[in-house]
């Protein structure tokens, strides 16, 4: 046990043996972590943004022209009670006309002066983004809305849906491989630098073996060194990422966009530290196996 702690200490002290090589390796780990984190950050925020502003599903409901106002109002109340509703906008024919004319310049007075509004009762209902079987949920909801009394037609806004669907397709088919790929890059780069920094210790390892050192005795300091390099590098990378995020986060945060960039979720940030650390350990281990 005492010997084990001595070896741990040696792993730390050995960093001082080749400070230049170790520093360079540390920087490489830092930068790769930073890069990987930057990509995660970008992807995560875009994903987030699409989910919030685009992923939500909106339906426009138009009642028949001769629909009875009471029935429509009852329907409106039931709409507000639906599961996952974010917002319900309702328009009586008069309101619809007013709303419409307000989008025209100078509030086309002629339109407002019309005796009876030519527009029907209308409602816009927005649902929060939901994961799972969106298609069948949507179909069911569409049917339910169409089944409301006196409803003439229901539409859902197609562009937003399309983008949202495309992004989710992209996420599911490409993001997983891209992330795996990033981890591979990380492993490669860290493993590479670890391996190369181990070249300068080959003599020591050879001699230790020749004087009767067991494998664990040889490997423990190397593992500690690798893990330290990986985790400190990862930590610095995440810290750098945080600093970069701090500077960038309000870039899109103005009216009327209000797109505030979010930092990585804690689990991803932790992964960015743990993975280099693990990779450092594993690559050290592999490097002394032969």
């Amino acid at each position: 046990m005492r010997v084990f702690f001595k070896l741990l200490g040696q792993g730390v002290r050995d960093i001082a043996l080749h400070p230049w090589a170790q520093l360079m390796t540390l920087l490489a780990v830092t930068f790769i972590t930073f890069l990987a984190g930057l990509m995660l950050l970008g992807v995560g925020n875009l994903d987030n943004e699409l989910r919030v502003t685009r992923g939500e599903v909106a339906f426009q409901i138009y009642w028949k022209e001769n629909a009875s106002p009471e029935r429509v109002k009852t329907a409106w109340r039931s709409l507000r009670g639906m599961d996952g509703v974010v917002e319900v906008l309702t328009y009586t024919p008069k309101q619809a006309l007013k709303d419409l004319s307000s989008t025209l310049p100078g509030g086309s007075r002629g339109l407002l002066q019309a005796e009876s509004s030519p527009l029907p009762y209308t409602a816009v209902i927005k649902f929060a983004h939901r994961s799972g079987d969106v298609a069948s949920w949507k179909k069911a909801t569409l049917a339910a809305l169409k089944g409301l009394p006196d409803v003439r037609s229901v539409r859902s806004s197609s562009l937003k849906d399309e983008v949202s669907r495309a992004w989710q397709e992209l996420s599911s088919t490409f993001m997983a491989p891209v992330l795996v790929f990033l981890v591979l890059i990380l492993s490669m780069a860290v493993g590479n630098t670890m391996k190369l920094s181990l070249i300068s210790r080959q003599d020591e390892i050879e001699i230790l073996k020749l004087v009767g050192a067991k494998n664990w005795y040889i490997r423990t300091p190397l593992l500690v060194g690798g893990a330290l390099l990986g985790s400190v590098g990862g930590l610095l990378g995440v810290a750098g990422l945080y600093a970069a995020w701090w500077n960038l986060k309000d870039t899109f945060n103005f009216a009327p966009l209000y797109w505030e960039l979010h930092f990585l979720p804690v689990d991803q940030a932790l992964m960015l530290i743990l993975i280099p650390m693990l990779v450092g350990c594993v690559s050290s281990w592999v490097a002394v196996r032969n």
Partner: protein
Amino acid sequence: MLNVTNLSHNFGPYWALKNCSFSLDKGEFLFLTGSSGAGKTTLLRLLYASLPVMRGNVTVAGYNLRALPARKVPDLRRQVSVVFQDFKILPYRTVYQNVAMALEVRGLNQVHIDRRVRAVVRGLGLESRINMLCGELSGGEQQRVAVARSVVVNPKILLADEPTGNLDEELAARMIGIFKQFHMHGTTVVLATHSSDIVRMHPEARQLRLEHGKIVAANWRGAEIFSDGISEVHV
């Protein structure tokens, strides 16, 4: 303690050792001679499992090297200490660290290590160099560090490959004296050297002469001289 039967070793098409057989009992002292390229280092490397035994059989300190699993090699090497022809010391470590290394891998306690290291370093005339980096030492000083590291562990078997090549007569004699001392305490010593002077000074010791990988001369019954009509003279 050390049993070699019909040992042969080739590097590609080249046979560095051919049909060597000899045995040494505990506490014997053997001079291994032979000119450059005769196979001395190859024979020693086979004895400490740095080369695998492919043909013939070798038993060292009770370990059958023909069937030694890799994880047993450290155990063997704790019984068998080696002085390497090219020293194999770490230039960026001090004399103390290089010598202590052999004890540290065995997990001994620090007080014991300190006492042993200082005693051995003093015995080899290196006390004034003990905290210098080995890369800064002269050739002869490095060679003595290599010897110090091998004897500091009190090994059962000591293999020394040309341990006096960089030393003058006086230091060489002193070093042989140190090996002799260990030998007195029961260590089996095999010392490869090209210096016939040294061998001549110790006629009581076992002697074995290699020529082109074959044992061509020996001065005791435990060795089988290569009987291919070439040379069978006892040295």
